[in-house]
């Protein structure tokens, strides 16, 4: 089995706002292995982007990573120790300068959601790709420029050398997304975090980009964390999936398992809310209601107010995130649902689903 390069354990990130503490990420654990694409799925506000930002330590005031471990190939990105009174960062935790010079860009790169806003409008596209390559790799300016053109060509920009001097507004959305991928890949990182990179694109362009990423991923062997809210995209490119709800991972497993042996009602609801070619349904079933505020999450299972399968114990008992089924290759399939626990779920009465329409 491939080596694990990133291991996130019980990560907690909070935002201290005037209206209270927002637990945006509340005990998230997952890992990424060499050469694999890991999905991070969930509704808006589930904490996906905060999770990825925490991994790169890009959380800004009033937010703060308050607990958990992030380990990247033996280097401690986030690590705390208990002094008895409070959690303090451990000594071996990388400093801000080390993060900037050794991790961000050259080890872990990030691709943002909006290709329209991720390029600086006052510089040429080529210049920006070159800047990032130069910054993160030990090569001269001339080489960096050649490399930038080569990367632009690789991601499918026609006449890359001629378009090197064009400005971002002269590129279409799909082309800009390709440029962002070229920027990230050009730095030769080990892991790329793609934060909903295809959300702003139309479906045909999305398809092309996904195909491109699949090809490039095979070629460069880069690992990906693919953040999305689109189960279709997950099915398309991910090897393993983490489903997030309200700051927690509720189900985790290989992509086939998630789709065909769904263990958590939320995942099921997500899947039911999109059309699928392998199933014929009369109507799509959107998930009722909206996600509650992370400022005061519901008691018990966080999904219970919206869960179609909710029963009495769900209101009180907090489900444990645990292995729920065996998979063929031994990869864990975990979920947090009381159905898999011995707390009297099956004997209890169903809860009225209390959502405002």
């Amino acid at each position, binding site marked *: 089995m491939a080596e694990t390069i990133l291991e996130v354990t019980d990560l907690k990130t909070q935002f201290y706002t005037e209206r209270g503490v927002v637990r945006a990420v509340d005990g998230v654990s997952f890992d990424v292995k060499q050469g694999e694409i890991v999905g991070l799925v969930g509704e808006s506000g589930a904490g996906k982007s905060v999770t990825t930002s925490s991994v*790169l330590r*890009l959380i800004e*005031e009033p937010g703060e990573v308050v607990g958990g471990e992030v380990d990247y190939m033996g280097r401690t990105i986030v690590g705390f120790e208990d002094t008895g009174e409070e959690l303090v960062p451990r000594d071996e935790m990388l400093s801000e300068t080390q*993060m*900037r*010079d050794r*991790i*961000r*860009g*050259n080890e872990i*790169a*990030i691709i*943002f*959601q*909006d290709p329209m*806003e*991720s*390029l*600086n*409008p*006052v*510089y*040429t596209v*080529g*210049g920006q790709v*070159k*800047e*990032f390559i*130069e*910054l*993160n790799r030990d090569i*001269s*300016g*001339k080489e*960096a*420029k050649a490399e930038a053109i080569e990367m632009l060509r690789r991601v499918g920009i026609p006449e890359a*050398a001629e378009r*090197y*001097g*064009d*400005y971002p507004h002269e590129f279409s959305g799909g082309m800009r997304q390709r440029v*962002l991928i070229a*920027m990230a890949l050009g*730095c030769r990182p080990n892991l790329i975090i793609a934060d909903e990179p295809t959300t702003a694109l139309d479906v045909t362009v999305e398809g092309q980009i996904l195909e491109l990423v699949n090809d490039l991923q095979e070629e460069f062997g880069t690992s990906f964390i693919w953040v999305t809210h689109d189960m279709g995209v997950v099915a398309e490119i991910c090897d393993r999936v983490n489903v997030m709800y309200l700051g927690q991972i509720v189900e985790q497993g290989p992509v086939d398992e998630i789709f065909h042996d769904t263990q958590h009602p939320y995942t099921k609801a997500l899947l039911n809310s999109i059309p699928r070619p392998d199933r014929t349904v009369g109507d799509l079933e959107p998930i009722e209601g909206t996600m509650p505020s992370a400022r005061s999450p519901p008691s018990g299972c966080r999904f219970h107010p919206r869960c179609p399968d909710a029963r009495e114990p769900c209101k009180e008992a907090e489900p444990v995130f645990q292995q729920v089924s065996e998979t063929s290759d031994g990869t864990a399939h975990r979920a947090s649902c009381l159905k898999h626990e011995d707390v009297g779920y099956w004997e209890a009465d169903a809860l009225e689903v209390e959502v405002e329409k």
Partner: protein
Amino acid sequence: MAIGEQQTQKDEGGDSGGDGFDPNVGWRHTLSKIKGDATARFGLYVIAIVGAVAVVTTIDANLSTITFGRVDNFALAESVWYHPERHPDPGATERRMPPFFVEGGSLEHPLGTDRNGRDYISRLVYGTRVSFFVGIVATALGLLGGTIIGAVSGYYGGWVDDVLMRAVETLYAIPPLVLVIVFTVFVSGGDPDIIYAVFGVGIAFIPVFARLIRSRVLSVREMDYVEAARATGVKDRDILRRHVIPNSFAPVLVLATLQIGVTILIVAGLSFLGYGAQPPTPDWGEMLRISHQYMHSNPWMSIWPGLAILITIMGFNLFGDGLQDALDPRIK
């Protein structure tokens, strides 16, 4: 990698013209818009003419190339402004002469002379130098200081922002003229000179620029490309210099153009009050100061420098307005 290295390498790789920040494309676009705007174009011409006069008088203090006939005799240096034949004794009596179209005037001094018999055209032309450069230099000082303070303040936020902005607001609360006078008197130790006025006005205008650029930086720093730069390991200083400031600069540039007019006016006011240019340096404000005593007998003495100030400021304002329209993408 050091910034210096990056810069030099950028220059080498400039053959495609596409490396890094290439303002030409943006400028070309802006200029073409200004070309189509008659008032902005007019403003630009006025600035160009006034600027040319200022430059020529600085390079060639003899003035012989741009004045006519015998006037050059009076213009050699500021201390020798007297007509050698007509007024052999400078200190003797009244030397004022009205413009040529008023009774008592002569074409020898088309706009007349001042109380010391110095040719008014020469004085006006020389005065351009002071007003023009003072306007630009003082505004540039304010722009530089304001940009740095505002950008740092907006980008870092938190206590940095609090400290800097409170300081700037304190400065902002004092009327600029009072601030500059106090500064000039304090720094010069009772011996006012135009150079102190320039610094004073520059400092007095820091708040205007700082507040404007800060408000822009607050929105620009949230842009994904700034986040992307941070996530790729670019240093804060480089993010500010390369990504945040260039994208926040357009409105500041417009303000600077308009502010030059205000600066010229303020410096003229300072000279009028005696805290700016000192005699015998020819300066429009200083000319106004002398001439206001003769308002009734020869109002033209006040009108000429007033007109000069008016035209120059109008030039900068028209151009500034045009620039604002040209830089605003919503106005086609």
